[in-house]
């Protein structure tokens, strides 16, 4: 009966599914990165220098840390465009807290993280409770925090007081930039959460088919609030690290970061439609974006031209991975 007829076909599918869909795309990205290294290593002076590699790690952290959270958000079929201003505002908040409101550094950091959790949760709550599209909810946060950061500071940098903690956060540990270490640790955490926890799997389920997830007794509201609270927290963390690095909080910082983050995630093969995506993919996406950005500068490419190139690359990357994935999966849902 059905067993026999469906067996061969489905096994083939299953294999393709795993090999093809998912990792083919990741293999492609790896290849791209290797290629970039070869090309840039031979053409751009100093690209391969240790300093530059460490510098790239540091830059990667700015995109990466937030990207882990945004990956889950997009897998759940939502979007978060508030990262950039959120980071800038967080850097202002921590600096003001430590310098002007005299909270001391550690408490200021804590306050900032809580605040991030707060505005994220707010956006998530608007989505979960009132069905405000997440694009709008986070657009609101984007506009509000962006304005607030500049308003509170008159666009003046808020100088951080000298502090060992901040020096470490902005500096290096055993020669490795602290933000990079934070990024890598968080990557491990998120990769684990996404793959091996009930929360992570529920996120995939919600993205794959919200109605079914609900019928299976999964609490959509809880998950959605958590998702955005997480990105809020990560944005705040990024902002703190940025402030530590710059020695000051800047309301105008991190402009456009949200697009780099989203680009990294989708380049990594996460589908905006939800339900599909991996942390590893995002990691590779972050790497691609960082390496290209770094290389273009080293090659002395005009900074305006860099945007053009970035735009083309985003589209091409997604194009390739859409085509690969489509090839690999031919089931009813496709």
């Amino acid at each position: 009966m059905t067993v026999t007829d469906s067996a061969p076909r489905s096994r083939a599918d299953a294999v393709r599914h795993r090999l093809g869909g998912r990792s083919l795309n990741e293999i492609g990205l790896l290849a791209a990165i290797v290629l970039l290294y070869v090309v840039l290593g031979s053409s751009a002076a100093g690209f391969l220098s240790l300093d530059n590699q460490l510098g790239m790690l540091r830059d990667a952290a700015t995109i990466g840390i937030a990207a882990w959270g945004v990956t889950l958000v997009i897998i759940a079929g939502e979007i978060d465009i508030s990262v950039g201003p959120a980071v800038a505002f967080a850097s202002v908040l921590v600096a003001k807290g430590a310098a002007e409101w005299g909270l001391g550094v550690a408490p200021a950091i804590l306050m900032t993280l809580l605040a991030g959790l707060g505005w994220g949760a707010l956006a998530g709550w608007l989505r979960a409770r009132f069905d405000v599209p997440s694009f709008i909810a986070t657009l609101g946060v984007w506009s509000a925090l962006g304005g607030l950061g500049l308003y509170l500071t008159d666009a003046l940098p808020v100088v951080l007081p000298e502090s060992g903690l901040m020096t470490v956060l902005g500096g290096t540990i055993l020669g490795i930039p602290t933000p990079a270490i934070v990024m890598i640790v968080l990557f491990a955490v998120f990769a684990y959460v996404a793959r091996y926890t009930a929360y992570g799997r529920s996120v995939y389920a919600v993205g794959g088919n919200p109605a079914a997830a609900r019928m299976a007794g999964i609490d959509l509201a809880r998950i959605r609030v958590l998702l955005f609270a997480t990105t809020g927290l990560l944005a705040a963390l990024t902002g703190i690290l940025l402030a530590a690095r710059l020695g000051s909080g800047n309301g105008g910082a991190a402009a456009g970061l949200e697009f780099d983050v989203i680009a990294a995630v989708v380049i990594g093969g996460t589908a905006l439609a939800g339900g599909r995506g991996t942390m590893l993919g995002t990691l590779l996406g972050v790497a691609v974006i960082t390496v290209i950005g770094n290389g273009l500068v080293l090659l002395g490419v005009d900074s305006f031209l860099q945007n053009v190139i970035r735009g083309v690359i985003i589209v091409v990357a997604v194009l390739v991975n859409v085509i690969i994935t489509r090839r690999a999966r031919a089931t009813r849902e496709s």
Partner: protein
Amino acid sequence: MAGDAAGSESAVVVDGVTKHYGAVQALTDAHLRVAPGEVRALLGRNGAGKSTLIRVLSGVERADAGTVTVAGRELGSGGVRAAGELGVSTVHQELSLVTGFSVAENLYLGNWPRRGAAIDHAAMRRGAAEVLDRLGLDIDPDRPVGDLSLALRQLVEISRAVRENPTLLILDEPTSALAAAEVDVVLSAVGRIARAGVAVLYVSHRLEEIRRIADTATVMRDGRIVETVDVDKADTSAVVALMTGERTGPSVQRPAARAVDRTGTPLLSVRGLAVPPKVVDVSFDVHPGEILGLGGLMGSGRTELLRAIAGFDPARGGTVTIDGTPVAAPTPAAMKQLGVGMTPEDRKHEGLVPLMGVDENIVLSAYGAVRSGPTIRPGLVRRAATALISRLSIATASPDTPIVNLSGGNQQKAVIARWLHAGSRILLLDEPTRGVDVAAKAEIYRVVRELADEGNAIVFVSGELEELPLVCDRVVVLRDGRAADELSGPDLTTESLLSAAMAA
């Protein structure tokens, strides 16, 4: 060509059509001729290739090889429009209406009548009204389809197909979501159309329906056309055997009455439950080991009733008692804890997480059981899934096959398995056999009975009254939002159910 039902020259000729999706060979070298005025049933198990053949005929998909000829003219690569011009019109398996549009706009979807650049709304409304009462439906053409019940939507779709005055009318499971009353409306409409000389291709998993409407039946299996039989002469088990490819089809006979101990405390007890507007006041008990059927017309509110019990919709009044303990305010989480599980009637949209494997779809309802600490162990997932897969004999290549690659019946079993995994003892099954083939239905009946024998309490909803006597020990019939009748034992028959459901 009206009136010529002899089939001298064919309305449609399918010649060597082949179609594959990725790795899936959905259709292999299909040959088929249907004469004008002939009603041809298309039979086959889930995944046999019926809808694929239909999608090719209606120009939605291009065949990899082979030709389709309608009324002597070949259907080229022109897609849906070309097919439409050749006189093919189709009611697809998936609801294909735009809920935001009025009935009239849907009837003319994609080829609205124009005056100059603008759509001629007047003409459209007139045409729509004309078609609707040609089929004896009183539906306001201006009503947004979003306000219609699924039943009415299905009828609107059929009206759309009829409106195009086709030479070939294709209906892909038009009644899968309908109950007796609407089925009659559909069948009489189809009959009228055929008598007007239109060739009809009719897909259904309900054999008794086929007997009423079809002249001949073509049986498909694994993408191939096996045989075409004369409906009057063929007997059911033979047809089923053709479909399954096994010598003897599964028995769909009514089993011996099961002994249920109804003395102890009921596992599920509902008192005066109200979910306005459909459910006014419903009470019933279900004991361990019992299968309670819920009968009634489409729209009698069974879905709403189940959703309220499972905590998805708030009840406006009444109490739900689980194993003797009343539940104050049912929420999905709470009811899950208490061992209540509900499978939705709309399998595709509310049941499956398409991108996930069968195993993940099963453990979805309770990760707690496959964790050690906070960590989900793939090993445990596999084991849990495999156990249920074999317990319900779900036909799948491997536990992690994407669930969309399973046939309808096996998808349904996987959704049921989800609740067994969660340890539910009270299973609310809403239309568990909707769109499922005959053999798979028999499978599901068997599974349901086994689960009951294990001491679970089961509520079985079906719009297909014929099947309730086959599974249930007892059937409560809903009418006007109330538990109007209760039938069991010998007087539980299709006829008694129908009259109970329709009684004024």
